[in-house]
């Protein structure tokens, strides 16, 4: 590899002035990067100088955290890696939350951070931070470029690692002096990754075992996670469920992988999942997990999780299998490959009618419910109305907390890749910048950002991008003047001691929107909602709707911490 580079260098003359930063731009072009999310600074000045001449669109966020969450939204909706640039030291450390978030939710990101010049690394130089060290446990892999000739290979590897197997964030740290070094573009670089070979294809014997297990099962259920979306296996999932007539449950992050209006769809499971799904997990005799990682918010108390079930786990990451739940039939594979192989079996349709009948009675008997009031806005009804008005076809992003759970409960997704939420890390401040990335990835879709007044205030400076880039994002602010989920837990588990969960002073969100050049609405009563939503959602401009929702509303039903999925609270009004 090195010899090839040297040969190429030797064969070229110094006609073209190209430096390391130009090499980076060229490498990004080879990866077909169309958009960068970033923020300039001292250590990346040469990179931004190269960008000045390069035809790659750059979104200038107002905080690095905004840039990386936007890149996550872009990645989630487009299925392509989100690319981020930040400077050394504080620029890079401001990315940490987004990197950890992408790691938890398996989002492909490639992050370039500037670093102080090679000669001063380790001297506590101005804006120096050990970014490779800091991000080691929260990246799928990271690099520090030591020789500019390695850059093309590293960039190629970074994109490959980020977007294959179980996707994740890859960080490349580049010392400033390298980006200024005289260099030459290198073509057709080869990757050097003998230790990275994701297992794509399932073991046929394991597939056969699963087919046999379905044959002897009477109460099977499919638990579909985000792996189905990452693996682009939604069609295969639908065919599989139909062919074997098995009900489908989603995790929070899996929503949209299976059409919510399909008769085989039960609903989301977990802490705030629906009763029917949680009971199905509790009572099933065969649990087929496709691309979910048995997160604690999904399983509840592991000791009582799926007590009767034979567990099948299909996952591209072998480390997830058996990590939390004992698995009888492990299948290490890409979801699409595994499902395709399964579909080659499927002889006669099994008879699960009694099981379907049983689950349908749960569904009928224990639907999601909420309090209807006239004098105060119901947050659940509001989300339901947005769902109705957008035909369930909008791209929806959320922050974290009550509104996130209500959005998951009341916005029913018919299509994949329309749901962008921070599941694993639970990052407040995620939803709004993620909507910017989602809109950039999908300019023709209606993008709705459901945010709470807590999380929104963490990253609302990115409002300026809606105006600047003319992005018609609809920000639906569920404003309850409190940190709703914290308040709910304090009410339930801390005897109503509302410690620091109530905002006593709030900005005027309408004026705030207006100062950023965006139309702002305020809604306080049920009567106003219809007309405002209609106007706002059909507008082709960005809007912010400040909805004063009932601050006393709680998310139900609920599995209390330490309890099993069958021990839900608040299943009925």
């Amino acid at each position: 590899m090195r010899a090839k580079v040297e040969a190429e260098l030797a064969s070229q003359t110094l006609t073209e002035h190209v430096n390391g930063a130009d090499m980076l731009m060229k490498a990004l072009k080879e990866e077909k990067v169309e958009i960068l999310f970033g923020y300039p600074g001292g250590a990346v000045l040469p990179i931004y100088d190269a960008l000045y001449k390069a035809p790659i669109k750059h979104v200038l966020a107002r905080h690095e955290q905004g840039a990386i969450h936007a890149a996550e939204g872009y990645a989630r909706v487009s299925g392509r890696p989100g690319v981020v640039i930040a400077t050394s030291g504080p620029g890079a450390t401001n990315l940490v939350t987004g990197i950890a978030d992408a790691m938890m939710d398996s989002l492909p990101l490639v992050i370039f951070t500037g670093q102080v010049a090679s000669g001063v690394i380790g001297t506590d130089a101005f804006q120096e931070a050990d970014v490779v060290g800091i991000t080691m446990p929260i990246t799928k892999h990271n690099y520090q470029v030591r020789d500019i000739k390695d850059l093309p290979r590293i960039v190629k590897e970074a994109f490959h690692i980020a977007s294959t197997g179980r996707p994740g964030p890859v960080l490349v740290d580049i010392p400033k002096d390298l980006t200024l070094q005289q260099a030459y573009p290198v073509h057709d670089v080869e990757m050097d990754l003998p230790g990275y070979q994701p297992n794509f294809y399932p073991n046929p014997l394991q597939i056969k075992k699963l087919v046999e297990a379905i044959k002897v099962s009477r109460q099977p259920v499919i638990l579909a996670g985000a792996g189905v979306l990452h693996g682009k296996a939604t069609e295969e999932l639908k065919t599989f469920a139909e062919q074997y007539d098995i009900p489908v449950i989603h995790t929070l992050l899996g929503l949209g992988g299976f059409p919510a209006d399909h008769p085989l769809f039960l609903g989301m499971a977990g802490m705030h999942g629906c009763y029917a799904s949680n009971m199905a997990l509790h009572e099933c005799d065969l649990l087929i997990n496709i691309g979910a990682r048995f997160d604690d918010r999904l399983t509840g108390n592991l000791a009582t999780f799926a007590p009767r079930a034979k567990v099948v786990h299909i996952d591209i990451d072998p480390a997830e299998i058996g990590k939390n739940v004992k698995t009888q039939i492990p299948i290490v594979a890409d979801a699409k490959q595994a499902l395709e192989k399964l579909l080659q079996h499927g002889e006669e349709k099994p008879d699960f009618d009694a099981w379907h009948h049983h689950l349908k009675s749960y569904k009928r008997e224990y639907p999601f419910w909420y309090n209807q009031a006239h004098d105060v806005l119901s947050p659940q009804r509001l989300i339901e109305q947005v769902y109705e008005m957008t035909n369930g076809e909008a791209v929806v992003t959320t922050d974290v907390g009550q509104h996130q759970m209500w959005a998951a409960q009341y916005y029913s997704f018919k299509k994949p890749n329309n749901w962008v939420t921070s599941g694993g890390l639970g990052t407040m401040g995620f939803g709004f910048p993620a909507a910017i990335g989602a809109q950039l990835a999908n300019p023709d879709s209606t993008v709705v950002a459901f945010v709470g007044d807590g999380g929104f205030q963490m990253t609302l400076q990115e409002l300026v991008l809606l105006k600047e880039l003319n992005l018609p994002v609809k920000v639906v602010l569920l404003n309850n003047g409190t940190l709703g989920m914290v308040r709910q837990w304090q009410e339930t588990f801390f005897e109503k001691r509302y410690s620091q969960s109530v905002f006593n002073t709030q900005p005027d969100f309408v004026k705030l929107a207006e100062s950023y050049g965006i139309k702002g609405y305020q809604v306080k009563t049920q009567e106003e909602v219809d007309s405002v939503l209609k106007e706002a959602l059909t507008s082709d401009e960005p809007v912010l709707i400040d909805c004063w929702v009932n601050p006393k509303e709680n998310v139900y039903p609920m599995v209390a911490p330490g309890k099993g999925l069958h021990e839900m609270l608040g299943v009925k009004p």
Partner: protein
Amino acid sequence: MRKRIVTALVHNRSGVLNRVTGLFTKRQFNIESISVGYTEVEGISRMTFVVNVEDDGKIEQLLKQLHKQIDVLKVSDITDQGVVARELALIKVLSTGQTRSEINGIVEPFRAAIIDVARDSVTVQVTGETSKIEAIIDLLRPYGIKEIARTGITAFARGNGKSVTDLKQYSIVN
């Protein structure tokens, strides 16, 4: 708690030790010893860990998490295989003229060696399995041990083990 010996072949790149030990910290694995050194292939090092685990699930998780690291080429739990496992210890023992020959009498059957002599101490070098090293330390303790330095175990499977030369045989699933 059960003691397991795990070896990993890794790319000898900067940060790889940090990557691996960071992983152990993150997943709460308890490392008893760790040793790293070159192999016969340029650019590839062997790490040998001795870890204490509660159950088989935990060791399986550790192996899988190590496999996931991109700089890790191959991981094996060799505890239950026929292994060659050795550790080296340097032990500085107080000694006067009178006790020196007594100490010699201990060193010889252990095939250890005195590699440094000072006015009031001798330094013993011993190589072997952990139990042998523990045994000689026990015997030397009555004379007064000033300092001990141990390398931790390095190990691999006995005899017909695969050579590391052919990189193609390493896969994160096998």
